[in-house]
């Protein structure tokens, strides 16, 4: 009997679906019904003319579970294609965050300085607050938010990951 690998890995699953009502509920219901994790999720139409949407889900589990997720999602009738980008190979995974920092004096200057280092843009500025817009890998956003915490971090809004394979290949 083949030994099962029990180590948990993270994976980015990209799903191309028919853009019809209830399709997101189908995918999410499958994850919750079968006890799979969803760490983040993005969904938006990508082919207006062909009514297709793309769902990107960051999940984690043993390699066997990740394989099951792919197969189970593939069963859904409105799913065109499903790919585990982590398995396919090099890919770009990015998300965007809007980060509100409320502070003054030294902390305010320091927040602005760190934002510059991270190439975050101040998209809204008042005398007591900034809203920074930041795009990048999940870890980069995490560390920016960590650095803002002592500097008056008030609110965060994140998009979840959008991902795509590097090079000419497509899913």
């Amino acid at each position: 009997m083949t030994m099962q690998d029990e180590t948990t890995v993270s994976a980015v699953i990209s799903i191309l679906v028919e853009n019809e009502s209830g399709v997101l509920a189908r995918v999410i219901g499958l994850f919750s019904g079968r006890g799979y994790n969803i760490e983040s999720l993005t969904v938006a139409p990508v082919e207006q003319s062909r009514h297709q949407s793309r769902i990107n889900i960051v999940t984690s589990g043993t390699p066997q579970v990740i394989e099951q997720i792919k197969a189970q999602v593939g069963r859904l009738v409105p799913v065109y294609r499903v790919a585990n980008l982590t398995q396919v190979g090099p890919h770009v995974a990015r998300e965007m965050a809007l980060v509100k920092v409320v502070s003054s004096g030294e902390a305010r200057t320091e927040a602005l300085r760190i934002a510059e280092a991270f190439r975050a843009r101040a998209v809204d500025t008042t005398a007591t607050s900034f809203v920074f817009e930041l795009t990048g890998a999940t870890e980069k956003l995490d560390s920016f938010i960590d650095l803002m915490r002592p500097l008056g971090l008030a609110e965060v809004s994140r998009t979840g990951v959008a991902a795509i394979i590097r090079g000419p290949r497509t899913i």
Partner: protein
Amino acid sequence: MNATPNLNDLKPNTRDHGADIVLSGAEVLLRVLVEQGVDVIFGYPGGAVLPIYDALFKQNAVRHILVRHEQAAVHAAEAYARSTGKVGVVLVTSGPGATNAVTGLVDALMDSIPVVCFTGQVGVPLIGTDAFQEADTTGITRQATKHNYLVRKPADLARVAHEAFHIARSGRPGPVVVDLPKNISVGPAPYAPASRAPHPSYRPRTEPEREAVVRAVAAMKRARRPLFYTGGGIINAGPQASEALGRLVRKTGFPCTSTLMGLGAYPTTDRHFLGMLGMHGTYEANLATHGCDVLVALGARFDDRVTGRLDAFSPDSFKIHADIEPSQINKIVQVDVPIVGDAGRVIEMMLEEWDRQDGAPDPAALGQWWQQIDAWRGIRSLHFDQDRTPSAIIRPQHAVRRLYELAMETGRDTFVSTEVGQHQMWAAQHFQFDRPNRWLTSGGLGTMGYGLPAAVGAQVAHPDALVIDIAGEASTLMNIQELGTIAQYRLPVKLFILNNQYMGMVRQWQELLHGSRYSESYSAALPDFIRLAESFHAKGMRATCVGELDDVIRAMLAEPGAVVADICVAQDENCYPMIPSGAAHNQMLLGPEQEGEVKVSAEGRMLV
């Protein structure tokens, strides 16, 4: 004639191909049913489906069977599908009509039965307003179906209805719900014939990869202790798949075991057949599964009732797994050769490859393997002692055996449905099935109350056949109202109740795991089944001792109408052999004398 066209006028013809003939939505639906070859539907009317019932009233092409509860409509449609190979069709109203059908839908989902269920819905403008008899049917049934639809536009109706049939019957079959708002069935809608174009996103694979089959057959040729493990997928692949399985088993000379759902795919009376495997499978089937060196799983899914303790499941075997559904492969058990495809096609390709590839399994090794299997058979794990004194208490296994033997004497085509519990396992162990599609049982979901409506569905599909529901007194009371349906359509169904006055399987587990504290498992205040039968215009019979059993069975089989036979059996009988939960295949209990020895592990107690 009235102004509404009757269905003969509605039959699709080539001249209007593609042309939009405007009918009401209800008429469009009926026309789709006719085009899909539907001759009978099971249903129950209500406000939201009145326009469809009105259209039904005005035609003769589609017969409607009025059940007494919507759950029963789905079970009847499942049995109709299982016994004919066609899609079963259900029509129920919105709200409670739809929610009552949910158990049947999940049952069909778990056992891969093709069913299309049309549910009424409040009109589109009322959706989301908590209208009378409104329920979010597509939301509720999303995880209960293979796919579901809400028809929001009249223009979608015909396409969606056709597509529902395609999805229900193709790939791994399953239930599909089509939710029809009342304004869609009342208003005008265009008809369109079924599209020949492939579905844009749904394309199940049925043709296996040759390379995988080549590897599988190479392993089978090297096998010294091989075993076929067959499941319901072979039944779903059609009678020709069962026929091909017969040729494959004879050609290879390998032993064959089957899951509960697969019974009948290979003749259970043949010497190559080892009996069912799993929790209540035979000693030889389970020991062979444990000891084999090549395991060939065909249309089976390694259910927990089959595998027992996973880390001890068939530990030394090279595993080949053929299934039409890629998600079933490596789901529970990691396999060496996965094959995705229709079971019938896989078997045919295996037969071709067996002839093409050189060599054959070592005959001496195969002979030794059969010797070993015959030694296990010598244990006679299904054996029981029945005291033949006329006044002796009837053992339930004896009742099933005699029912089988006397039913065979009639020479009639026989269909057996069951409820869920001990009687179901005794029926699986002691009734024999030499042909597919004759065994109707709720395997995956284990739905008590399945058997009587299933018998309705099978009898409607096969009016001249002998249809028997082998039941327990507790299960059958869950859908006993279907005696009304049986009476209305004069269905000669035989309800054969093994009455032990307990929820027997619950009681058996309470003995095994909970110190024989029979918490709520006694069937108190039972009805008098004879008078119950009579009040539903059926014949009631009772056997209370061995001396009466054969006469009652003979009388039941001779009776031209419906019968309820109350067979009073030993109350304390338990179902053996048994693999206790959390145990391995080679740790079977053969009888109650071993019960004291069993120590169910802490993990085992957590399992169902």
